[in-house]
């Protein structure tokens, strides 16, 4: 599974992109986020307030309950500010 971080989520985690093998039991975005928060440090800080976090799975906007698997690309980022 590929996980991408943008804007201040990238700054806080210190990672732009990582490939990880999600542990058994991680079947949704919510599960993945709990897994990442458990790493503590920048991850816990970046993900502490999910109202400020937006999610895309395979480059489409998604919600916390979206099912994900090993082949998916999951992106975590703040609300967008383009235009």
């Amino acid at each position: 599974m590929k996980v991408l971080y943008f804007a201040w989520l990238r700054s806080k985690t210190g990672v732009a992109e990582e490939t990880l093998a999600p542990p058994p039991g991680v079947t949704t975005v919510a599960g993945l986020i709990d897994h990442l928060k458990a790493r503590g440090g920048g991850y816990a800080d970046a993900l502490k307030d999910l109202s400020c976090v937006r999610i895309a799975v395979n480059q489409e906007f998604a919600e916390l309950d979206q099912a994900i698997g090993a082949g998916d690309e999951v992106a975590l980022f703040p609300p967008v500010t383009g235009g």
Partner: protein
Amino acid sequence: MIKVQREDFDVGAELDALARDNHAIGGIASFVGLVRDVAGAQSVGAMTLEHYPGMTEKMLAKTEAEARRRWPLETCLIIHRFGRLEPGDRIVLVATASAHRQAALEACAFLIDWLKTKAPFWKLEETAAGTRWVAARASDDQAAARWVAE
């Protein structure tokens, strides 16, 4: 048509190209977004636009398709830049061409409103006090929401 690029664009040339040889077009509406510098303590020196390559193109193409579904457009263009930009620099161009002006004007407003809340871009501003990520604005969500209600 969608273009995501680091380079600047020539508004006049882009609009001319849209209408060239299509005499069914009665009007072209466009919006150009520029890097604004608010004077004073919050003064912005420059900004860097980060985006999500791949998803950006996908979301802009979806936005264009939705505009074409809602209004009878002859043609439609979105150009969005990324990278470091200075005050006065162009960020985005949306342009719509239609036989009728209301369709062009409404579709143009729709495109920029939707893009503001759906295209994965983030602005990092440089100020005297350091850099800061620009926060999303509730007014942008409201502007996008009115196109759902309609």
